[in-house]
């Protein structure tokens, strides 16, 4: 029973310089109730992936996929309308900025009840009842008062909780959280993540946690997909990646966080990336990380493929890092 199954999903945007590919043949799977992490620098296409799954891409974007199924339903076989309905019932999404993700002109109550109504509860009294339950479930007190308030009257963390309440109103099987804590205070961040994980456990709801912060992933996810420039660079269980990242990019991401992994006790970074993520319409030939990669060699001008590494996962690199790399670390 796959919750999410994506094969070779590509998304293109037309620009006046020709089409740009913001997602390049992305494939991934999620089991029911799984927590999957997606990491990558900003601009690597994480949000595009989320929007593509939800069918929320701008109308000028073109989406291609060999296979795209949610909750065992092949989405590519549905009409636009059917797809919209099906996705709305089976998946939800919350965004980075809780303040702007809610309509500033409507009260929290109205927006919650609108969602509830869309999922079949017609009687206003019951809608209100359900709204109160949902607010309770996400840990908001004084639900009666909150229902009457407008988004700008609540704090960021509180708004994100409301967004989560709205997202779980449909009892979705998949919740995509696109950088849900990036805009929040550090103290609030862990509370929100806790809440998401708690809901994931109690409701058997799959969670796709998107972030550019590896630290956030480490404790909460079972698998991690590392994305760069619209491609998946590495896809492996969280533990293996934390212990032994095989892709130089994953390694660099890990190394950029203090306090994770033993190698930092040396106080030096092994893999720091020079430069910035390339513009999507000016990609390097071959491996997209090439110009920034400390291990780049001649061969890297040929595009690497996503290949399986035993007892680990999938890695897109001509020269994947060795398994026992602590020795390498101490030798430098």
């Amino acid at each position, binding site marked *: 029973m796959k919750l999410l199954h994506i094969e070779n999903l590509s998304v293109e945007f037309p620009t006046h310089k020709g089409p740009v590919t913001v997602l390049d043949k992305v494939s991934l799977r999620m089991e029911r109730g799984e927590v999957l992490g997606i990491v990558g620098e900003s601009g690597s296409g994480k949000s595009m992936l989320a929007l593509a799954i939800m069918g*929320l891409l701008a109308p000028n974007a073109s989406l291609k996929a060999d296979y795209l199924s949610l909750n065992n339903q092949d989405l590519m076989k549905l009409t636009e309308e059917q797809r919209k309905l099906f996705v709305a019932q089976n998946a939800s999404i919350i965004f980075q900025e809780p303040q702007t993700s809610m309509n500033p002109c409507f009260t929290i109550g109205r927006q919650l009840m609108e969602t509830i109504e869309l999922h079949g509860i017609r009687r206003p009294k019951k809608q209100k009842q359900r709204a109160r339950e949902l607010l309770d479930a996400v840990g908001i007190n004084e639900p009666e008062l909150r229902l009457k308030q407008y988004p700008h009257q609540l704090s960021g963390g509180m708004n994100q909780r409301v967004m989560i309440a709205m997202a779980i109103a449909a009892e979705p099987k998949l919740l995509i959280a696109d950088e849900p804590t990036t805009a929040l205070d550090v103290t609030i961040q862990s509370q929100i993540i806790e809440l998401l994980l708690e809901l994931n456990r109690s409701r058997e709801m799959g969670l796709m946690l998107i972030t550019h912060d590896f630290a956030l992933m480490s404790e909460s996810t079972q698998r991690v997909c590392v994305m760069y420039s619209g491609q998946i660079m590495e896809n492996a269980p969280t533990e293996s990646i934390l212990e032994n990242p095989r892709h130089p990019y994953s390694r660099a991401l890990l190394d950029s966080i203090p306090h994770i992994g033993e190698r930092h006790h040396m106080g030096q970074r092994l893999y720091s990336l020079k430069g910035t993520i390339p513009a999507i319409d000016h990609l390097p030939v071959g491996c997209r990380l090439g110009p920034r990669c400390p291990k780049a060699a001649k061969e890297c001008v040929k595009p690497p493929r996503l290949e399986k590494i035993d007892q680990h996962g999938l890695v897109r690199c001509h020269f994947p890092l060795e398994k026992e790399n602590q020795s390498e670390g101490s030798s430098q």
Partner: protein
Amino acid sequence: MIKILLKQLTILILSFTGITIIFFSLAQLVPGDPVILHYGNLTPGTEQYENAYQELGLDESLVRQYLIFIKDVLQGDLGRSTVTNHSVLEEFFTFFPATIELSLFAILIALVFGVGAGVLAAVNKNTWIDNLVISSSLIGYSMPIFWWGMLLILLFSLNLGLTPVAGRISFVFDIEPVTGFMLIDTLLAYPKYEFAAFYDALLHLILPSVVLATVPLAVIARMTRSAMIEVLSADYILTAKAKGVSNFKIIWVHALRNALIPLVTVLGLQSSVLLTGAILTETIFAWPGVGKWMVEAIFRRDYPSIQGGVLLIAVFVILINATVDLLYAAINPRMRRPE
């Protein structure tokens, strides 16, 4: 809310004081004997003349004169027309409903079609629909409406014979002015003419209100379009889509509700544009409103009417702007205090 109300009230009082000062000063500039300007042809030396002289406080200081002027204005005494000898206030209010009826109808047309066109253009951004709306609103915005009115008369009234050329109603109908609003008065006269008079009044109203609506419509369409484009790219639209809200509801409820906020401000500014347009439209269509009345007063050098009329119109515009500001605060939840 109370704070906003107080602020508006202060602005209102200040503006009113300012306007009256300006008008009082202007009155000093008007050439000729102030007594004659105010009361028509009185012969100097007669008792009447002397009384009037006293009443205007002309033998006293300018400050005194201004205070007398203010007192009169506040009591609703704006003097008498030197031509008809009627009270200016009364005369203004006999013509005012015609202008209001015309303007209301025009703003209704402008709102319905302007908002509609703006939303359509925004939803179909960069398509031929969008281009059509953009270019027609640019033309509408640039339109000399006095010419536009003549053109429509030429086409619809003279060539096609579809609409009447001038006035508010054919004179075969004898409608008693109860409210001053022709559409209502013709309905009140229902037993006499059934709906015939109402239709006739409506027919008279269409062409002038279309002409008057042209510029505001263009402005509203442009404004709605850009506001909608901005709103439609907001995150909460994505949220609504993800929830499965229908496209129709997303556009006309979620997005439009937000786009209306900047629109209200534009609407306030349009009240002045509308009254300017009314002067021209009423002249072209021989529409018996305050605009036409004012222009005639100028040709007749009827200074009390000019002075009183402009004062009243200015107060009216200021009142509308204050209302719009309140409305803005009312429809924008972000203006509300955090609780």
